[in-house]
């Protein structure tokens, strides 16, 4: 097959240069050889450059989307790695099953979920995505297909979970789904006022709720304020309901940079706070707006203009949580930049299975800034100082600028991981952080 040069984008609108693409739709097919270094590319929902590779060959996996087996009694499903959560839900929800861990968008492939060992609003009860993966198939560049599970090729199993796609092409994933009775969530919102409330409310409520996250109004001067959003699956028996993964609205063009300026973001944050702070606390909502509010608008990242957005997510040990949150928030406000979607979540103690998994017990905070070039980079460097002085770590799936030193401090098992990297694989992220050359 002829390979064609094509520019690929990540969700923060970083892009590749000089890379070829190789669509791979059949799991029996071999990887391209002689095309340079390789890296899988699914839905391109990683924010930074961990899903991008310059001057190499990216294997497009969205065609690799066939279901292989499903056990309706145990909920164990085996499907190809290019399946998205959206298409999996279309299959599973009407049958009474749900993904055990779900990130903030359903437009991600299962291979991507595995390679980033993603987490969701239920981390405090469930752990990461990788905790529910029982087995997967991996195509190495030497042509071998390796089957990996905790008992078989276990080194490669733990390296590939959170392994940023560097250990080979994930062909298929076997996953334990979660039983649900219908596509609805009983949601509870409460106002948060003051820094301590972000921790007190979460610590108290997390014992009673399966899903929780705190949203913070980052532009609000003075005492931090926000909303604690929690939910449980509705337990009443409901009749099977259809589920469609379609997005009705979509942003067709990239908006001008001023569309997401400080002023408009602060306005939107205030509006969101005011709209929700005074409404009745308990509501039944559909799983889509609860888990994937931003998916309602396709290509929402285009609102951030050509320069895109810069997400920044870190985790620090619980005891440093309040200090890290107030210091980073102060730095953001002092820099006169603002974050549209700022979330705070307490990670639970379920161990993450991957050598490079990001989630660990503590507090995770995520900012997302319109990318303003040098100014934003300076702010992020400044935030790094807080994070690392608190013994924290940065999240590769959202990153496009962490240094090798930051990476190695964040992931102490990086040396152990290196032996499992497929020699033909690389990424812009891996090159910057010294994982590959």
């Amino acid at each position, binding site marked *: 097959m002829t390979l064609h040069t094509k520019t690929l984008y990540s969700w923060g609108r970083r892009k590749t240069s000089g890379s070829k693409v190789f669509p791979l739709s*059949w799991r029996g097919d071999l990887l391209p050889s002689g095309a340079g270094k390789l890296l899988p590319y699914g839905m391109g929902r990683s924010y930074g450059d961990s899903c991008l590779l310059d001057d190499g060959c990216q294997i497009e996996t969205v065609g690799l989307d066939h*279901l*292989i087996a499903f056990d309706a009694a145990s909920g164990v499903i085996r499907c190809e790695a290019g399946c998205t959560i959206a298409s999996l839900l279309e299959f599973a929800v009407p049958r009474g099953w749900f993904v055990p861990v779900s990130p903030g968008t359903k437009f991600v492939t299962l291979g991507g979920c595995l390679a980033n060992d993603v987490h969701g609003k239920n981390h405090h009860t469930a752990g990461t995505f990788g905790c529910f993966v029982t087995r997967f198939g991996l195509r190495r560049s030497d042509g071998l297909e390796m089957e990996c599970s905790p008992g078989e090729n276990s080194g490669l199993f733990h390296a590939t979970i959170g392994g940023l796609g560097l250990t080979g092409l994930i062909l298929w994933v076997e996953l334990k789904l979660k039983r649900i009775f219908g596509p609805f969530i009983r949601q509870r919102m409460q106002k948060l006022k003051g820094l301590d409330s972000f921790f007190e409310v979460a610590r108290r409520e997390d014992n009673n709720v399966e899903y929780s996250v705190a949203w913070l109004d980052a532009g609000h001067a003075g005492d931090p304020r926000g909303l604690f959003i929690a939910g449980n699956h509705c337990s009443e028996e409901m009749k099977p309901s259809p589920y469609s993964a379609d997005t009705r609205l979509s942003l*067709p063009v990239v908006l001008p940079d001023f569309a997401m300026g400080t002023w408009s973001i602060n306005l939107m944050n205030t509006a969101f706070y005011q709209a929700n702070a005074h409404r009745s606390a308990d509501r039944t909502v559909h799983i889509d707006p609860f888990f994937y509010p931003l998916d309602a608008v396709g290509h929402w990242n285009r609102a951030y203009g050509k320069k895109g957005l810069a997400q920044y997510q870190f985790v620090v040990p619980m005891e440093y949580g309040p200090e890290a949150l107030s210091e980073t928030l102060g730095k953001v406000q002092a820099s006169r930049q603002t974050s549209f979607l700022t979330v705070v979540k307490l990670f639970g103690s379920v161990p993450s299975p991957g050598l490079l998994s990001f989630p660990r017990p503590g507090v995770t905070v995520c900012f997302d800034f319109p990318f303003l070039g040098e100014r934003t980079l300076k702010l992020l460097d400044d935030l790094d100082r807080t994070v690392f002085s608190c013994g924290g770590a940065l999240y590769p799936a959202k990153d496009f600028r962490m240094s090798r030193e930051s990476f190695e401090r964040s992931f102490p098992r990086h040396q152990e991981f290196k032996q499992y990297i497929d020699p033909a694989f690389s990424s812009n992220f891996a090159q910057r952080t010294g994982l590959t050359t």
Partner: protein
Amino acid sequence: MKSILVLGATSAIAVSFCRKLASSGASFFLLGRNQERLRVVAEDLLVRGALSVETRVVVPGDFSSLRAGMTEGLPSGGIPDLFLAAQGLLPLHEECEKDPFLLGEVFQVNAVEVMQATLLAAAEFERQGHGDCVIIGSVAGDRGRRGNYVYGAAKASLETFCDGLRQRLEPACRVLLVKPGPVDTPMTAHLAKGVLFTTPEKVARDIMAALGRDSGVLYTPFYWRWVMGLIRLLPARIVKRLRA
């Protein structure tokens, strides 16, 4: 419970279409070139609820193998309710211009085998008194274009074929010619994707809707009916000056 016979069953549009019917417990007979890929599609349909799936390999360019596959999929007694012809080959146009030998393969895959298989299905449908034919054409067949007139010519022949076949089979059997705009599939992987590209899922959804509506020609997405209507009306004097 429907019974579906598919030629070119591993094409992205065929897979999407079959998935829509699988959950209602349809049975499938799949013809394709590659046994391993047919097996992958069969597994997928079974997991999604298909009652049964059988597969046969058809050797390209070999009529006896096509006839054998079709005959097995069309047991007399008349089982299939629907025949879908979805096999397609989109060549690099410049290579066809340089080497006209390639044109033979383009017509063989996109036109000759599709019509041969449809004739075999039509004979059976005529005998059993029901059965619909769904044939994947293309907007490229509506008017010749500098950049793909070889592929376009092969797809255009399907239109004339379907017009006549419709007269022969209707009203007992329907003949639906589907004309998708560019679709994002492995067949078009080498093309730059513009805003006009649609997905195989969308095409499959539109085919399902068209089958309920009793239409003869389906443009998908719908706006291609108007776009191609206008392009067909352009006088030849103007069309020959276009280079797109």
